[in-house]
């Protein structure tokens, strides 16, 4: 009798492979981003079946939720289709993937069985944490005890890393998305700092009129573009104070 968890694991793994091949073969970036969300959700389901519920939580929320949205909003400022790459330039990456895959398969027999008592994950400090949490911290969830107390320094480092990442994005892009003057051309349509919703509130011009103005005259005529931009920078200052 095959255990049902094994069937579930194999099914999820098979779906992961199918989604990965679908992502590789697609050209529409919108579909790719959506499939990446599906991939993350499948990963989360698989983590649950491995009893790693904390990781599954994070994967579902970050991988399937937030990062999908961030990829979408990045895609909207770039192209929506990826261009096909000629076969000759794909040979190198294929070689790297094949060698790495072969090395991983070669390493599989050396891995301890899942849940083995003498595996490195279960043998050294891991056991120690499990033994001591009940006496020292008195909370049932060992993961929280390790994360926040035994490994408090690591978690502090992680929080600082997240803070630094957010700070970096804010310094580059601005919290309202209008740091400095910039221009993007997704799908041949000009987008610039003057066309933002926050800038429009100041100029009173609609997106369409600005978009028409900019797409009909490439490069956009200076006198037209200069005025809304000036007001946009004013709006930026107003929004930040």
């Amino acid at each position, binding site marked *: 009798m095959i255990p049902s968890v094994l069937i579930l694991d194999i099914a999820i793994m098979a779906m992961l492979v199918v989604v990965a091949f679908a992502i590789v073969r697609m050209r529409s970036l919108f579909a790719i981003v959506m499939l990446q969300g599906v991939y993350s959700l499948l990963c989360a389901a698989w983590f649950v079946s491995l009893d790693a519920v904390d990781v599954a939580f994070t994967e579902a929320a970050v991988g399937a939720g937030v990062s999908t949205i961030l990829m979408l909003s990045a895609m909207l400022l770039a192209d929506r289709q990826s261009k096909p790459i000629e076969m000759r330039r794909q040979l190198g990456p294929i070689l790297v993937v094949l060698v790495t895959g072969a090395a991983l398969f070669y390493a599989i027999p050396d891995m301890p069985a899942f849940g083995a008592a003498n595996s490195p994950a279960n043998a050294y400090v891991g056991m120690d944490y499990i033994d001591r949490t009940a006496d020292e911290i008195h909370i049932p969830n060992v993961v929280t005890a390790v994360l*926040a107390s035994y490994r408090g320094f690591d978690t502090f480092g992680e929080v600082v890393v997240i803070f630094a990442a957010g700070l970096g994005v804010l310094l580059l892009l601005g919290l309202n*998305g209008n740091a400095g003057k910039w221009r993007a051309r997704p799908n041949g349509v000009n987008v610039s700092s003057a066309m933002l919703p926050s800038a429009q509130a100041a100029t009173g011009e609609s997106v369409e009129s600005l978009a028409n103005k900019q797409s009909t005259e490439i490069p956009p005529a200076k006198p037209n573009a200069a005025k809304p931009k000036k007001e946009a920078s004013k709006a930026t200052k107003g929004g930040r104070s």
Partner: protein
Amino acid sequence: MNPHVILRVVSKFLIPLIALFAFYVQFHGDFGPGGGFQAGVILAAAVILYALIFGIDAAKKAVPPSAVRIGMSLGVLIYGGTGVATWLLGANFLEYGVLAHDPSHGQHYGILAVELGVLFSVASVMVAIFYAFGSRQPDLTDEDW
């Protein structure tokens, strides 16, 4: 008339539940799976869902960018401040035992404070990055997709 009536109605019902679930994950982290990171991301997802359905301007009214900016740094401050507090009480950095008479209670308080810091930081950074990218798009119509 807005074509996304179903989305609006359903998400109006769901967003409070998502936020509530985030707080459940946060404060039940000692007993079940979850903690500051997960709760922070779920809370940010609630705000981002609101921004997706009702527009980023409405989201900025509900969760103003200044609050996001403060929340980012407040989280790190709470975490680091807990460490400094244990310093001032004569123990090592982040050694929570001294925060209460009973060391295990001190551990509880310390973990609670630290997880709260993680929640603030993670939720605010996620929303901040979303605001930064999302505010760069001009308004889209359905045909743009």
